[in-house]
């Protein structure tokens, strides 16, 4: 029966996890770069002596990278693309969440709008672009529009499903306490659907990048996608590969930013899901 001096939180317990957390940062980093390094190594070895015109050695591709991009193309081609991408994506986000919530909340609206939306969703952007050009011209507006209309779907669909799936008891609780519609929207519907909205937003991010490229294939004069297509057409194959790699990198960077934003928004959710998985 040895009595321990009672403190609510054992002081020993607080330092250990902090160390562990510091360690996990390094671990997380290694986890993040591990597989890519392995894959790159495989690519490097497999392509080493490649004679194929379209599959040049990785070494050659990487050697071309700096001259291709760091001599002005970043500002001239990549930044305008990113600008359009971000604007289009944000529009998609607002539109997708807004319309998605409305549709998710009203089964009647859903019944009304869904077939028509599905109709437009199934039309390939390369076919739609000429029509869009009629209305919006050929410059930034059109491209932003293409990005937004393409990226909106995953957000919209996921929002609809997320809103539909909000817990019944929570819904009841909110009505019992007569939460105003605005509060209900904010604290019940959007928060409750947020895990799925985030899923959609994550999906939409890569779709937006893809559509950025596609929109630049039509009526373009600059941009990352445009440049890649130009390289491809002019048979500058190593350069084309650097463009594809750059696209991937853009994807990774954007997804890192996305995760940084996602983390606090979904803190409750990850906490909830992990709370019982190990307690720490």
């Amino acid at each position, binding site marked *: 029966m040895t009595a321990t001096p009672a403190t609510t939180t054992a002081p020993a317990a607080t330092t250990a996890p902090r160390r562990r957390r510091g360690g996990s940062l390094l671990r997380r980093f290694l986890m993040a770069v591990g597989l890519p390094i392995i894959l790159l190594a495989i690519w490097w070895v497999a392509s080493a002596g490649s004679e194929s015109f379209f599959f040049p050695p990785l070494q050659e591709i990487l050697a071309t990278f700096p001259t291709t991009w760091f001599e002005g193309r970043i500002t001239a081609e990549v930044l305008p693309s990113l600008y359009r991408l971000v604007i289009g994506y944000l529009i998609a986000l607002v539109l997708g969440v807004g319309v998605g919530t409305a549709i998710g909340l009203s089964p009647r609206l859903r019944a009304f709008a869904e077939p028509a939306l599905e109709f437009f969703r199934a039309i390939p952007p390369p076919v739609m672009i000429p029509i869009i050009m009629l209305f919006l011209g050929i410059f930034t507006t059109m491209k932003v529009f293409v990005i937004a209309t393409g990226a909106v779907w995953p957000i919209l669909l996921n929002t609809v499903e997320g809103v539909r799936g909000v817990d019944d008891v929570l819904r009841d609780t909110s009505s019992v306490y007569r939460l105003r519609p605005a509060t209900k929207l904010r604290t019940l519907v959007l928060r409750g659907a947020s895990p799925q909205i985030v899923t959609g937003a994550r999906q939409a991010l890569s779709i937006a990048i893809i559509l950025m490229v596609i929109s630049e294939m039509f009526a373009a004069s600059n941009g990352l996608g445009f440049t890649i297509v130009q390289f491809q057409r002019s048979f500058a194959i190593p350069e084309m590969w650097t463009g594809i790699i750059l696209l991937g990198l853009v994807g990774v960077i954007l997804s890192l930013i996305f995760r940084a934003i996602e983390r606090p928004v979904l803190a409750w959710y990850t*906490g909830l899901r992990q709370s019982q998985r190990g307690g720490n």
Partner: protein
Amino acid sequence: MLDVAGLKKVYESATGSTEAIRDLTFQVRAGEMVCIVGPSGAGKTTLLRCISGLLPPTSGTVSLEGQKVSGPPKGMAVVFQEYARSLFPWLTVEQNVELPLKEKGIGKAERRRLVDNALEAVGLADVPRSYPWQLSGGMQQRVAIARAVAYEPHILLMDEPFAAVDAQTRADLEDLVRALWHRLGVTVLFVTHDIDESIYLGQRVLVLSGRPTVILEDVAVNLPDTRDQLTTRNDPEFARLRAHVYDLVQKAKRGYRPEDAVAPAVTGGRDLPPTAGDGPWVNAGL
């Protein structure tokens, strides 16, 4: 105040329909405390959900202060049986309690006070910033209670609100509900499985039959208004009532129904004595 007339609820589903409530008629005066007991699966939760306007009845009506209930009325608080799911997982304990107050338009300082008091009263003053999922089952249930208490409702519906707390806490919470009732004059409908609790708390105990539900008996509790855990529970009247209600619930569990009493060929009918509880406010099964 509350008038339930000919209430009937049938759940429809793809696989068939379930008649949960057959026919319920009763009244509750303003400021009354009514406990509801009945076998598991009887339809108590269904009844509360109909009264709170969350569930449209199949037939019959629920009126509150003369108004037919079609959605959740003003000034009502409900503690759900699924307490864990009724807390917003993305809000802290404090925020969960505060949210309805904000909606009610209560000022910040007053809100603070109400939240702190309520959390204090249910014994959770030390975890305001935790999330519900960081709490034990009983603590979550107490958060739901604190939320209802802080809201200072006119009518309070509680569905087995003390199921997950220990005996001592339960006693404390019982006294809390009675104190609140005294202080605010709130009308309380209280569903419980604990027969002692129903008698200790209520002015009347509605005993429900098994599904499809009708009222078996409306038992009046003629105990003094000031009750305390020790003396009240030792009152001989308390013992009598407990035995009586226990007997009723047991019968209900065995499938006894009031209509059996009038049906001539049913064995075991007639063994339910007419009780003193049938006050003017009761009109079961009109």
